[in-house]
């Protein structure tokens, strides 16, 4: 057994132990903190598997933003009722899960050795896509539909959250250390976000990672009490949220009417259009995520 395999096995065991501890620990607060650690370890796993784009996104969204949302929800929810599942449910669940584990393990085992023709196809058409990083080419050219609909899902989640006007977050007065740190972190998040966005065309990085980092900077500032409440009824906010989907749809529709088809960029213009979409999507994702986490809903209460 070589050292690399030992590292992989240790990482997977750590992930499984963290997941089990997260889901079954007694105190809910401990569970949430363990879940954030689980997200960070997952980011390390993605980096180990060569998915650097994903590691960046997971560290920013999976561990950071979901952690903040869980803690905010924990603050809103009442004390947890100590109910345990009846033994019959527990036994049935263990039985079903062990059967499923065997079934799926047998199912995925042979997949490790076969291969698919898709990566070769992507690489042979990479030059025509307008960008040189394959993941960005897939996200914004070959499978642009996915990205467009993903922006729509984000918008739908935001609209759904706004419909359920729940009580506002009562932010406690920020202590001086948080304010000092957020003054230092916010400019850094803008620089890192811009760098990730610019880098996305030829190396790991891109709109989602950049948007998530920018949103993190805005959320830290808001939690430190250095930003005014983020309100939906301020029109530039709405313009930023809708801008990503609107620009993406406009470019897609223009391609349909004037060019060769829906989401089919004209040759030569690929790089410009992808960059435009990425910038609009970054702003849109950053504002949507910030509103999801720290958005103020005071103005719609009747």
């Amino acid at each position: 057994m070589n050292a690399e395999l030992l590292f992989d096995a240790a990482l997977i065991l750590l992930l499984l132990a963290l997941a089990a501890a997260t889901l079954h620990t007694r105190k809910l607060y401990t569970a949430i903190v363990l879940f954030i650690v689980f997200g960070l370890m997952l980011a390390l796993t993605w980096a180990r598997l060569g998915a650097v784009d994903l590691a960046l996104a997971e560290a920013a969204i999976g561990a950071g933003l979901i952690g903040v949302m869980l803690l905010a929800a924990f603050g809103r929810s009442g004390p947890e009722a100590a109910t345990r599942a009846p033994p019959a449910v527990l036994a049935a669940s263990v039985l079903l899960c062990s059967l499923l584990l065997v079934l799926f393990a047998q199912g995925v085992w042979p997949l490790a050795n076969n291969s698919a023709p898709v990566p070769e196809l992507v690489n042979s058409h990479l030059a025509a896509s307008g960008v040189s990083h394959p993941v960005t080419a897939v996200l914004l050219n070959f499978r642009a539909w996915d990205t467009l609909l993903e922006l729509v899902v984000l918008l739908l989640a935001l609209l759904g959250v706004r419909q359920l006007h729940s009580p506002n977050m009562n932010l406690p007065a920020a202590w001086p250390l948080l304010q000092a740190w957020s003054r230092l972190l916010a400019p850094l998040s803008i620089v890192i976000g811009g760098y990730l966005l610019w880098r996305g065309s030829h190396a790991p990085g891109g709109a989602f990672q950049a948007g998530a980092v920018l949103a993190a900077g805005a959320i830290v500032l808001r939690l430190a009490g250095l930003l005014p409440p983020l309100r939906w009824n301020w029109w530039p906010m709405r313009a930023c949220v809708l801008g990503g989907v609107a620009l993406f749809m406009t470019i897609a529709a223009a391609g349909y009417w004037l060019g060769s088809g829906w989401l089919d960029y004209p040759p030569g213009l690929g790089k410009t259009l992808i960059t435009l979409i990425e910038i609009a999507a970054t702003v849109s994702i950053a504002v949507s995520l910030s509103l999801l986490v720290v958005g103020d809903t005071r103005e719609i209460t009747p």
Partner: protein
Amino acid sequence: MSHISLYLLGGVALWVLGLHALMTQRNALRRIMAVNVMGSGTFMVMVALAARMTPIDPVLQALVVTGLVVAASATAFALRLATTESPVADVDRERE
């Protein structure tokens, strides 16, 4: 046995762990975390499949990047649903 097989099995184990918690836990926040752990297991299988060949499969990785944002959106909505003071929740509480 390569490291890819290890990660494939790890992903399946994570998914099953999440399913078990989803069936046995009662608290809404714990159930949302359980669904997230199940999602992470699925992502791990997909990323391991993407890494099994050289060059690395960009389509699967791009799908997981998309999936991650969709999962975060769904989690945000679910958390707000779980902690909203609504008439329905009050009726449930009175029944208990």
